[in-house]
């Protein structure tokens, strides 16, 4: 069974997806960060591939990407770091990145290497759905990779249903039209998630963008199956030498009463 199916069969709510940037804070801290996230309660790990021009990201994640690139991070090095990671990490792991570096690596080679190393799925926010349908979707399917589309409060019902039908693993509900890491009006977010829930989509829904602490995580978990935290955690890692301790003190309050 796919790792995502196993996860969502066992856990229907308060699923916590934690974003981290590969090669941040140090070039070789990727595995350490992933282990710390799993040990401290993350249900899914979303590993960001740094890019020079990350259009959908706010300043915090941009900055972490710049640091990772300055550290020398590349997709080649990432796959070396991920060799044998499945011996230690059991939770689903997805790679999040922008299409350009993946195309330069070679889309099929990227899928083959991701799959061979035990990656479960991909998020590429600038992948147009017609390109997915025409070309890339089949390649990912051949390598048993899930692909997760994003929807926003401005996405029409018809389009949400289409993107849901093309996605597998989960559907990424962007909490409002924004870049990552900006503050949100949580009442509006709730209305939107409630609306998504009413569509009875085939995929579980994880909400992201602006989820930063227990309060915001619990708020989205009222209607979504879980939430995605990125910028707030990246900020928490800044300047920390003890990654495990920083991760523990960040996650402890968020997951305290949910289990």
């Amino acid at each position: 069974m796919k790792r995502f199916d196993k996860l969502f069969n066992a856990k229907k709510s308060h699923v916590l997806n934690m974003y981290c940037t590969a090669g941040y804070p140090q070039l070789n801290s990727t595995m350490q960060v992933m282990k710390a996230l799993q040990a401290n309660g993350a249900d899914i790990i979303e590993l960001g591939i740094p890019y020079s021009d990350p259009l959908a990201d706010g300043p915090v994640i941009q900055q972490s990407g710049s640091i990772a690139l300055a550290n020398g991070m590349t997709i080649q090095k990432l796959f070396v770091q991920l060799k044998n990671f499945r011996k230690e990490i059991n939770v689903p792991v997805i790679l999040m990145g922008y299409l350009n570096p993946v195309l330069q690596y070679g889309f099929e080679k990227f899928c083959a290497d991701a799959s061979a190393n035990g990656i479960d799925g991909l998020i590429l926010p600038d992948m147009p759905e017609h390109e997915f349908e025409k070309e890339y979707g089949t390649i990912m399917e051949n390598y048993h990779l899930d692909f997760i589309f994003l929807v926003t409060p401005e996405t029409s019902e018809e389009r949400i249903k289409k993107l849901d039908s093309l996605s597998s693993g989960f559907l990424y509900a962007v909490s409002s039209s924004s870049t990552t890491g900006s503050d949100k009006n949580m009442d509006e977010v709730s209305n939107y998630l409630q609306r998504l829930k009413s569509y009875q989509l085939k995929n579980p829904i994880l909400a992201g963008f602006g989820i930063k602490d227990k309060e915001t995580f619990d708020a989205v978990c009222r209607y979504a199956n879980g939430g995605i935290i990125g910028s707030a955690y990246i900020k928490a890692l800044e300047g920390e030498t003890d990654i495990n301790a920083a991760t523990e003190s960040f996650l402890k309050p968020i997951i305290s009463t949910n289990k």
Partner: protein
Amino acid sequence: MSVRYQNPDALGYYGKFGGAFIPEMLYPNVHELQQQYLQIIQSEKFKNEFNLLLKDYVGRPTPLYYAQRLSNEFNTNIFLKREDLCHTGAHKINNTIGQILLAIALGKKKIIAETGAGQHGVATATVCALNGLDCIVFMGEKDMERQAPNVARMKMLGATVLPAKSGSKTLKDATNEAIRYWINHPDDTHYIIGSVVGPHPYPDMVARFQSVISEEIRWQLKEKTGKENPSHVIACVGGGSNAAGAFYHFLEESGVELIAVEAAGQGVESGFSAATTALGTTGILHGSKSLLMQTPDGQVTEPHSISAGLDYPGIGPMHAHLFESGRARFLSATDDEALKAAFQLAQLEGIIPALESAHALYVLNNLKFKKDDSIVICLSGRGDKDLSAYMQAMEK
């Protein structure tokens, strides 16, 4: 005759280049444009307003000037398309007039733009003042320093100028910041992209607004020489909007040689260059697939040019297609060569060109012409904004 180069297909592709590679947060705005732009800009009401403003406000038609002394120098016939005489000093305003009318038709209240040299920023601030719309211009921090007079002009016109502080702090980063702002403020904002770049329909839309340049060249040349077509059309290319406009009505005329001139910076192989077709590979930047200067890992390279308007690591998808198909020839000029050409034009013809346009002028030195050729060079902008670079060159 089939149209092979002028317009993209329904998904915005020129050959294999173009498309709309955008995050979902931008989908409603870009989709709205895709659905409506042709209908709006082809309506009689729009065309009348657009043409009236081009005439009375921009000062079109701009002259097609026969440059006698320059022609003597190269022993041929050289015509300068005087876009430098447009209101605000460059061709950029052709596009901003078109886009602001479109934005108003779509009910938008606020305008954002990116700018490199500041010419597009000034042209955008100008049409916003003209129509009473709020205007925010994103400009690389480095460009704000080297183009200070244009920053002052934008501010005087009532625009807010926000520095882009990420990456190379130039045009690419200003474009990123403008797109991020649009993601965060989607409801009432229109993004006026200044070049034939960005997701579909921008490259086509901007090319259509700039196509007035070649439309005029055609009848002006006929009037002056009796010839249907020029032998050559030469224009500089950063993103490529003045070249798209100057080439547009000659794209399907195979007898017209189209020459695009990129900025070689300190030399194509120097590591400080913006010559995209010489150094680039297929990639995705700012929402479209095109040729792009990048590392083997797909990280976008920081370009270099003395000219802020050409300091961009990509080119528009139409130009990538013209390059790959061989329809246009791509040459380049270095920083020093552009300076040399600027001084030559100033002293032969009494016209101080923008540094961008000076790149196009330089390649006259690299080409062989016949005596009866009719060469049109798009003089895309005037050189006032580049005086500090010219003053430095005189001190050397």
